[in-house]
């Protein structure tokens, strides 16, 4: 469904991605792992057209989307839920979600309020009045309201209290049941491996490894050595 072929991308003036290639199949959840600064966020932003793709091509649904303006990529069915949780703080929760809604989306506002019970009670509050976790859920709901064919999720559990992490995990499982195509950037390895079908590991702007969930679970060291402590 999505193919990245030898992407070079820049973060400001500095080159953040060096020839990154991978693809995502329809209905698949792909986890993008790597340390801070490895280029995960830049990859998502490059797909979305927010960062310039200097070389290489991004194909989505058979057509080249690299070079298109962001709103056209969005209209083609790609949705980004950024790690910065860009809630519109002056809009109510419901308005936030409605703003994302596009006709024909299977995720109607009503259904989303159903899926995210925790935000249903805040639907008339302003986005800015929510806690970090509530905002995260709201922004995910807003992304889903667009009825995306491909959802880009950037660190949805980052900095959240455990109860909220669980709520995010539940939503991810729901997406998995819906067979939605997702690229998930996640530092929480357990959460990533819970839902992902496949894992791609970035290090210093290079895709250094790609493996299935089974392989990752079988050989955790292979993943962990790129990520942290040891």
């Amino acid at each position, binding site marked *: 469904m999505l193919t990245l072929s030898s992407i070079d991308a820049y973060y400001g*003036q*500095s*080159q953040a991605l060096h020839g990154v290639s991978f693809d995502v199949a329809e209905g698949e959840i792909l986890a993008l792992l790597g340390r*801070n600064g490895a280029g995960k966020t830049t990859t998502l932003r490059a797909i979305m057209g927010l960062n310039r793709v200097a070389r290489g091509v991004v194909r989505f649904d058979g057509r080249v989307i690299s070079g298109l303006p962001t709103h056209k990529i969005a209209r083609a069915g790609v949705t980004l839920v950024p790690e910065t949780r860009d809630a519109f703080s002056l809009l109510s929760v419901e308005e936030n979600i409605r703003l994302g809604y596009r006709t024909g989306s299977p995720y109607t506002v009503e259904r989303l309020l159903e899926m995210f019970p925790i935000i249903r009670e805040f639907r008339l509050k302003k986005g800015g009045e929510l806690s970090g976790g509530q905002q995260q859920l709201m922004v995910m709901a807003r992304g889903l309201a667009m009825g995306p064919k491909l959802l880009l999720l950037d*660190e949805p559990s980052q900095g959240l209290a455990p109860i909220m*992490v669980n709520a995010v995990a539940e939503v991810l499982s729901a997406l998995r049941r819906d067979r939605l195509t997702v690229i998930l950037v996640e530092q929480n390895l357990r959460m990533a491996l819970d839902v992902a079908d496949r894992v791609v590991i970035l290090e*210093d702007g290079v895709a250094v490894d790609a493996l299935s969930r089974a392989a990752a679970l079988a050989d955790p060291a292979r993943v962990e050595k790129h*990520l942290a402590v040891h």
Partner: protein
Amino acid sequence: MAEPVTVLEAIELTKRFGKNTVVDGVSLKFPEGRLHAILGPNGAGKTTLFNLLTKDYPVDGGEILLRGERVTRLRPHQISRRGVGRSYQITSVLRELTFFENVWLASYRADHAGAPGLWRDFRAHWATAEKTRQVLAELGLEPFTDRKAADVSYGDQRLLEIAVTLATRPEILLLDEPTSGLSQRESERVKQLILSIKGKFTIIMIEHKMNVVMDISDDVTVMNRGKVIASGSPAQISTDAAVRSAYFGL
């Protein structure tokens, strides 16, 4: 051996943004001459802690002691003049200026306590210019002397960032992810650089690259959700359960 002197101390430091408490009652002591690493997942509040220590942000609660003096209410440039130098996570080099100018500004500050001069061409402040060239040479950045910062690679900008911080000749050095966004080779260079200055300064460093942290730091503190969850030697930390859980959710 006598206990080393504490040069910088945070007491119950707290910072809130709206409803989110980003730094939540953090108390830490930084002894003189040691390299202290701060770890934690994204959003743990590490950079905010730095911003509080350098007074880039006003403090919502708690105190900061610098060599025993209460500095909680000072302004950023006053903190800087008391010998606290800092580098930023997002490169904050002056992109429109050359390497020379960037480092010169830091050296000049160290040389010159009063108001900046306003007649002689800044390049003609020979002593400062000489020191500037020295710092650039030490970090192997001479070839870039007259290049605009915007025109070089990210890695070289990161090195410039450190050069600028060193040129202020601080006693306490706060490095915010000095290797972020660098390639393996570049971050090895930075690591060697930090090793070479270790011991001359008190260094506090936010870092994600475990190999860097484990190889060079004396003490490690791990933060998560605004709180300190573990402190100790690198070896202790690498096996700490709370840390593994914070990182991997295991």
